[in-house]
């Protein structure tokens, strides 16, 4: 490449800056030596300092700044707090679920029997008191006793209908039905006056300790009720479970006018599970008169 007066300008800047290639630099040096006027220009520019100008700053810089979304990073403590809150919430949820399971299991242990369904099919008595080894008793439990279809019209039942409604919480029990043949042995309360049985006579039934009714409310239990049953009836009844109901002074209800209520076993079950019946055509029985109710039902025929 030949550097001449027409093209030397585009090499002059690189020559001044020292970025020209060695070959071109030598050629440029030779050209400048041959042209002193151009050499003077180039040498002057090697020490060129631009004229001083005032320093200007843009006055509206703040107006140009755009807001930036601030992202707060969570620190380790924040994550720990979140994790602890989550675990606490999880613990409460698990506790609540376990409570619900217990409630559900308690409800399943005391299923509501359909009308006319034998009590023995849906109950699981304990091994020592269920009488499962006795096939006769199991069959009898599923069979209604004779004379079951009659309405409860005895004076005792009529008096029961006039009793005030139950008032507080108490404990009652499910019982196993009696054998039909043995039910016939029951006597009507009108024919046989109520006799307070001896605790030792009632088999497998614990005798409760009597509390002072004036100081503490009497907790009426099925054991207490059955302890007062006549001997023939208490012998045919086996304790299979204990239920807590929400009616204190007792309280037995059964829809006596419904067809299924004619089943004495059904009535018997409903008497012990008053919480399962809330219709108006039910009757209430105080715990103290449960033995009379049993006697009235099972001696109807």
């Amino acid at each position: 490449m030949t550097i001449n007066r027409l093209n030397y300008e585009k090499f002059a800047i690189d020559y001044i800056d020292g970025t020209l290639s060695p070959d071109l630099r030598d050629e440029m040096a030779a050209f400048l030596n041959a042209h002193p006027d151009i050499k003077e220009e180039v040498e002057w520019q090697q020490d060129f300092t631009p004229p001083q100008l005032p320093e200007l700053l843009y006055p509206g810089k703040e107006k140009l700044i755009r807001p930036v979304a601030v992202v707060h990073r969570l620190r380790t403590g924040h994550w720990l707090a979140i994790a602890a809150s989550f675990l606490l919430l999880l613990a409460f949820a698990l506790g609540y679920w376990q409570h619900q399971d217990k409630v559900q299991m308690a409800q399943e242990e005391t299923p509501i029997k359909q009308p006319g369904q034998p009590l023995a099919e849906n109950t699981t008595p304990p091994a020592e008191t269920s009488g499962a080894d006795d096939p006769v008793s199991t069959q009898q439990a599923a069979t209604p006793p004779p004379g079951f279809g009659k309405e409860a019209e005895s004076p005792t039942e009529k008096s029961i209908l006039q009793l005030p409604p139950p008032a507080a919480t108490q404990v009652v029990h499910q019982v196993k039905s009696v054998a039909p043949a043995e039910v016939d042995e029951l006597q009507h309360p009108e024919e046989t006056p109520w006799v307070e049985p001896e605790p030792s006579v009632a088999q497998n039934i614990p005798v409760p300790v009597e509390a002072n009714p004036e100081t503490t409310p009497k907790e009426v239990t099925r054991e207490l009720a059955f302890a007062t049953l006549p001997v023939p009836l208490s012998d045919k009844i086996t304790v299979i479970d204990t239920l807590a109901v929400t009616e204190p002074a007792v309280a037995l209800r059964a829809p006596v006018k419904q067809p299924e209520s004619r089943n004495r076993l059904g009535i018997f079950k409903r008497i012990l599970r008053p919480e399962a019946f809330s219709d108006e055509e039910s009757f209430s029985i105080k715990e103290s008169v449960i033995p009379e109710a049993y006697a009235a039902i099972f001696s109807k025929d």
Partner: protein
Amino acid sequence: MNANEYNQCVENYSDALYRYVHRGFRHIDDAQDIVQHCFEKLWVKRDQIGMPEAKAFLFVSARNASIDDWRKNHRIVAFDTNGPRESGYEPDQEFETLDFARECLQHLSEVQRSIFLLREYEGHAYEEIAEQMELTLSQVKVNLFRARKRIHELMQAKKNVL
């Protein structure tokens, strides 16, 4: 380009852009508006423009806006040392050398003045200037050499007068 990068461009280039417009085109009153307009365009097109291209985009936009503004208003002022002062200069900075520097710049062509300002005062690379001015690298160097030569001639002339 996100907001952070845009704000970084404002920090890096707003002053230089303002000086470039203010010194090169003497749009004293409109220099701020031109700079603001350039950054608004950058913000609008931030999705298409990255950080590497932002600098060239700003200076090209500023040059085009300045030229368009001059063509519309014919407000370019012929250099006159006795004319009105530029609002950007403080009274204590109005030295004779500053007036001489402005006189020198006004004796350059628009291309030479822009190249001279970008290279000598803003420190842009030749490649950047070529991109911003849409010139070849040789054209940039030739214009820069001629601008320096013109400035040198003016300085020599002033020395002779003094």
